């Protein structure tokens, strides 16, 4: 019996039927991790901790939805007594004294954290090529990138090693790799999941979320990841619904928006065709497609590339080689301890963003760049508020095309930044958004993005689940190839 490519729901059935025990599940999972070492999806394994947790569950008669389910955690979440690198040399020796709330919630629900997944350094990248620990390979074609920054999490789920993984999304870092690897991934509303214990990149945009094989599994994970957390001052004290409750309700008469201003003519034409067939599928299910206007949406990427670097330069000023993390050997005084530790500890893309952020926040440029970007951010948010008066969700392709070859964009920052064209707007407006598999181009997965209104993850999941019940893109996998 193999557990590869099984969903959470299927594994839960196997556990409840006594076909397998949590410890046996782990045995197979670690074997799969070993067999897929070449993907470079994991930075650190947690054998001791996960086996200890599994043994406590082995004698159970009945398993709740996530009890005994192996899960991979993005290496951006602090995990107590387990190395947490954030993909950086700067944190190559950092062992946190506490665990992030989102991870603690999953573990309390019975998830077995098998290891920490590779990622772009400090979550800055869209191809997993900026990690200090090397590229992650796309399981569908190892010459291609898995996307980023949650590339290790996406590859681990796509390769069927684990049924679920945690991710974080600042400008598309859950949805873009989910799309490129053919899995489902959700970025919830800003404030839904506690950011406590998440290593900060851009604090007004960062949000954790689930990555899995199906929408239904994402809903199960979201149920547990959300909590009101006093330790995160932006954590929302709002009702947390059962996100699985709505899934099977039909989407007849739901109004689904498409954005007038997204210029699809410049896209890969196969992506456009695929998007149109996704719309046809939604229409078949009784949904109504409505054109909406988000006039300022094309300004999302430039707005993001002021705000995110500004917040990054501020957040990353904490890495000084004094209290934790990497310290240079090349020290003559305190000033060059700071400078050399940071220069040697950070990679190229991180330094580029710190410099841009410092520039846009510096005296004389603050109003022209940072304040201006925040004003445009409000215009974009207002556009979404207006659009959601008319529609229930908004859909678009998740990315401009399928996964690209490693190295093909890494020399050109703007081309890499445009990779997140469709995903960034939801971060700026703080809205929930997910990517689900929608088809293939040359045997590489494509994704459909579903953006929801503030706190309305339920409708996003409902539309996604209805789509999956009527399609089988999410059931394909790299071993059997596309059928």
């Amino acid at each position, binding site marked *: 019996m193999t557990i590869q490519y099984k969903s959470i729901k299927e594994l839960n059935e196997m556990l409840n039927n006594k076909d397998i025990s949590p410890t046996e599940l782990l045995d197979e999972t670690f074997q799969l991790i070993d067999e897929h070492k070449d993907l470079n999806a994991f930075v650190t394994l947690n054998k001791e901790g996960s086996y200890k947790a599994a043994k406590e569950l082995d004698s159970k008669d009945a398993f709740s939805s996530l009890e005994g389910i192996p899960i991979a955690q993005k290496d951006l979440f602090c995990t107590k007594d387990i190395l947490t690198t954030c993909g950086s040399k700067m944190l190559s*020796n950092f*062992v946190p*004294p506490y665990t992030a709330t989102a991870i603690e919630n999953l573990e309390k629900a019975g998830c077995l954290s098998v290891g920490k997944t590779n990622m772009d350094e400090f979550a800055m990248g869209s191809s997993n090529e900026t990690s200090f620990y090397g590229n992650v390979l796309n399981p569908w074609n190892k010459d291609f990138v898995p996307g980023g920054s949650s590339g290790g999490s996406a590859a681990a789920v796509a390769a069927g090693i684990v049924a679920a993984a945690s991710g974080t999304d600042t400008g598309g870092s859950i949805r873009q790799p989910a799309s490129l690897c053919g899995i489902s991934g959700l970025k919830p509303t*800003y*404030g839904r999941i506690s950011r406590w214990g998440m290593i900060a990149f851009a604090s*007004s945009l960062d949000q954790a979320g689930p990555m899995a094989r199906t929408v239904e599994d994402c809903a199960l994970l979201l149920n547990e990841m959300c909590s009101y957390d*006093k330790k995160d*001052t*932006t954590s*929302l004290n709002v009702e947390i619904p059962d996100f699985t409750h709505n899934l099977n309700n039909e989407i007849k008469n739901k109004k689904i928006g498409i954005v007038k201003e997204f210029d699809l003519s410049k896209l890969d034409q196969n992506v456009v065709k695929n998007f149109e067939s996704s719309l046809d599928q939604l229409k078949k299910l009784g949904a109504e497609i409505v054109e909406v206007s988000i006039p*300022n949406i094309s*300004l999302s*990427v*430039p*707005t993001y*590339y*002021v705000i995110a670097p500004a917040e990054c330069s501020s957040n990353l000023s904490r890495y*000084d080689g*004094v*209290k*934790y*993390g990497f*310290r240079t050997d090349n*020290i*003559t005084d*305190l000033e060059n*301890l*700071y*400078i050399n530790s*940071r*220069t040697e500890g*950070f990679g190229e893309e991180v*330094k*580029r963003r*710190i*410099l*841009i952020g*410092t*520039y*846009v926040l*510096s005296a004389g440029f603050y109003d*022209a*760049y940072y*304040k*201006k*970007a*925040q*004003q*445009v*951010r*409000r*215009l974009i*948010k207002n556009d979404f508020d207006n659009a959601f008066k008319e529609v229930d969700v908004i859909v678009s392709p998740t990315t401009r095309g399928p996964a690209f070859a490693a190295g093909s964009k890494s020399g050109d*920052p*703007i081309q890499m*930044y445009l990779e997140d064209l469709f995903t960034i707007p939801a971060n*700026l*407006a*703080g*809205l929930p958004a997910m990517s689900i598999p929608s088809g293939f181009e040359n045997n590489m997965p494509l994704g459909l993005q579903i953006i929801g209104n503030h706190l309305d993850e339920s409708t996003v999941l409902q539309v996604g689940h209805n789509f999956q019940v009527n399609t089988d893109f999410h059931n394909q996998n790299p071993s059997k190839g596309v059928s």
Partner: protein
Amino acid sequence: MDKETVSTIAHLSRLSLENEKGDKLISDLEEILEFVDQLNDVNTENVDPLSSPLEMTARLRNDDLNSKDRKSKFLSNAPDSNEDYFLVPRVVE
């Protein structure tokens, strides 16, 4: 963006660019700034800046002791420490 501006920003960022391919970095930064310059074409008169999608005032909480003493654990992550202190090179001669 001239070399002097870049070196001022590098100093503010506490980063050294000495070993970097200076020209490629400057041209990358210029390209990024040129790209974000399109924001200047937008009329934002009387638009309030949006600093967080939630627009709520950050909650305050009492600074209560809620965990046991973890001093040694925190210090164990430091590159260099001595009893209760983080160690850095001598600052005052």
